[in-house]
């Protein structure tokens, strides 16, 4: 019996031998992000044309990646939050709190007398804890995520200022600066961390039951609940995860700046949400793409880089940024439409 008169071509694709399922998924991933890839390539072409070798240089690529790293890691966590139709405005402030907490004098002294690993662990623990507070309020307190994280944004930033007395804390733990601030196999460690977190995030979202539940809750929380998924607990964990990512971002930024400061991560939340949303994750939940998020982050950091290489007036840069964001999204949409037609 054939009901889907038309889609023979389509369904045969799916009936292919099993080993090509992976390949197909990759294809789909690429295809779905075609517009973004296109936009990124276009940006690179512009970069190459306007700045020539200065843009196409390996060092420059590393600069772009280093810039992308902190925002990138935090965005991976935010992708989960947005996939469950939540929002996290507090990541920037949590990052500051984690950075400040880890770099207070006592913390550093402890790290110096034991091991530098204590610094990143503190940062991650603080980040995850703050995220957990978000999660508990949202999942069990039923306070909407926007409000909860807005409150956390204020509170964490204030706390960071109080702890640091608004002074920038210099990091004197050399082991830490060398390990995280340095290179590994010729690649900056923080870029490697970004890559690891991105891969980890991709696997978690797309290859585990945790990820599947994340999509399900974002798509239809009620259906997920009725199917026996622990929606509250899962939601809580997702926010803790976002906090953890902010904590990772915190120690990466600590290494990059050799400081902990209550001003770290100011305005990061908007950059992060922008990257995630440009990457195709829907604010309404149910759809999320780690690959898209990574592309979104790269697009923004490439843009910053191209602006830095070229000598545009500051204000013109702002206007151009606005225009480029809209154009990128319009291209994305056009390609998506064309694709679904064929």
């Amino acid at each position, binding site marked *: 019996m054939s009901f889907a008169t038309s889609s023979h071509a389509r369904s045969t694709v799916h009936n292919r031998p099993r080993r090509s399922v992976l390949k197909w998924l990759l294809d789909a991933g690429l295809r779905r992000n075609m517009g973004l890839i296109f936009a990124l390539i276009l940006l690179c072409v512009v970069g190459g044309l306007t700045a020539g070798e*200065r843009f196409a240089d390996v060092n420059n690529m590393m600069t772009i990646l280093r810039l992308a790293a902190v925002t990138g890691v935090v965005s991976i966590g935010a992708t989960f939050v947005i996939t469950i139709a939540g929002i996290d405005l507090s990541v920037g402030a949590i990052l500051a709190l984690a950075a400040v907490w880890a770099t207070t004098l006592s913390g550093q002294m402890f790290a110096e007398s034991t091991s530098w690993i204590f610094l990143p662990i503190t940062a991650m623990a603080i980040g995850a804890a703050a995220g957990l507070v978000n999660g508990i309020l949202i999942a069990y307190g039923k306070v909407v995520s926007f409000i909860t994280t807005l409150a956390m944004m204020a509170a964490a930033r204030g706390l960071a200022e109080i702890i640091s007395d608004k*002074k*920038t804390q210099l990091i004197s733990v050399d082991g830490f600066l060398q390990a995280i601030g340095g290179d590994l196999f010729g690649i900056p460690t923080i870029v490697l961390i970004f890559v690891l977190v991105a891969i980890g995030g991709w696997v978690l979202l797309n290859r585990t039951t945790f990820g599947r539940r994340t999509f399900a809750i974002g798509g239809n929380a009620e259906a997920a609940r009725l199917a026996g998924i622990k929606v509250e607990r899962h939601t809580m964990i997702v926010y803790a995860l976002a906090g953890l990512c902010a904590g990772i971002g915190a120690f990466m*930024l600590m290494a990059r*700046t050799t*400081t902990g*400061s209550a001003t770290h991560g100011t*305005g990061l939340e908007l950059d992060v949400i922008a990257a995630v949303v440009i990457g195709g994750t829907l604010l309404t939940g149910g759809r999320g793409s780690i690959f898209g998020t990574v592309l979104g982050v790269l697009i923004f950091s490439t843009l910053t880089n191209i602006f830095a290489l070229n000598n*545009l007036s500051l204000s013109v840069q702002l206007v151009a940024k606005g225009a480029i964001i809209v154009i990128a999204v319009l291209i994305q949409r056009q390609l998506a439409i064309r694709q679904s037609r064929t």
Partner: protein
Amino acid sequence: SCVSNSPAPSNESSDAQNAPAAAGANAEEGKKVTIGLSVPAADHGFMAAMTDLAVETAKDYPDVELKVSEGTNDVSVQISQVETMINDKVDAIVLLPFDGAALTKVAQKAMDAGIPVINVDREFSTAQSSRVTVLGDNYGVGVSAGDFICAELGDKKDAKIGEIPGIDSLPLTQERSEGFKDALAKCGLEVSNRVPAEFTVESGERAASNLLQAAPHLDAIWNHDDDQGVGVLAAIKAADRSEFFMVGNGGSANMMREIQSGDSVVKATTVYPAYQAADGVRMARLVAQERSLEDLLDIEIPRKVVLYAAVVTKDNVEKYLPTAFES
């Protein structure tokens, strides 16, 4: 009036006031150099004025190509801009960091790569990370303002003093407040109300409105920034208060006009020069061209320049008005 400078390190020099029209040998065209400039976001008037002056200055020199990066308050982005300049092998970098300490490492990296860094306005955490440091005297302006208020209020021991700082988490704000507090202490006064603003007109108006409400009677106000000062004045007018006088900081033209008019609550302002970054660009040019300051015997450019925090009052406002920036 009495003006004190910050405790002076040995290799520190003071810059002469009326700088812009320098026509000495330093103006002669030299080797072509590329200078990178990175600054915080122009989210307040003073910062915008400072950036613009730097850009304008560069245009005066045909041998300078200035590359300006998007203004940002994200240290991560600013670091990447400096990294880009290093990759780009510019001849010198003028860096007005959002947070001095956080940009120290990358500045050091530039220095290590042989690119001289001119550190402007917000100081790095180590001196070696820059070739030249051009600073406003933040502690100094606080002291100047405090001294002025002390002198005006004389022996009034229970005087109420309000302070409207700018962004509180910036080291420069903290230094200013520090200097102000120390100077007031000398004549036995202290700040009774303090409401921070954010260096913008709007925030100045908001902070001042609340401050005026908090303090039913005031004798003096020190406002950290002349640009937010426009808003502060608007709030004072709206509240119809005039029992106090106000001291500003920054040295914007319209604040000086207020002082000049004589009937304003603004009695004085300290000059916190907006041309620091412009001076930074000039200095960068000379450093990159391996030249010296013609007026000094020293054949090198100085290590550190702390700009003089002059106090502008009705008596000397004519002298300063022509060079003041329009905020």
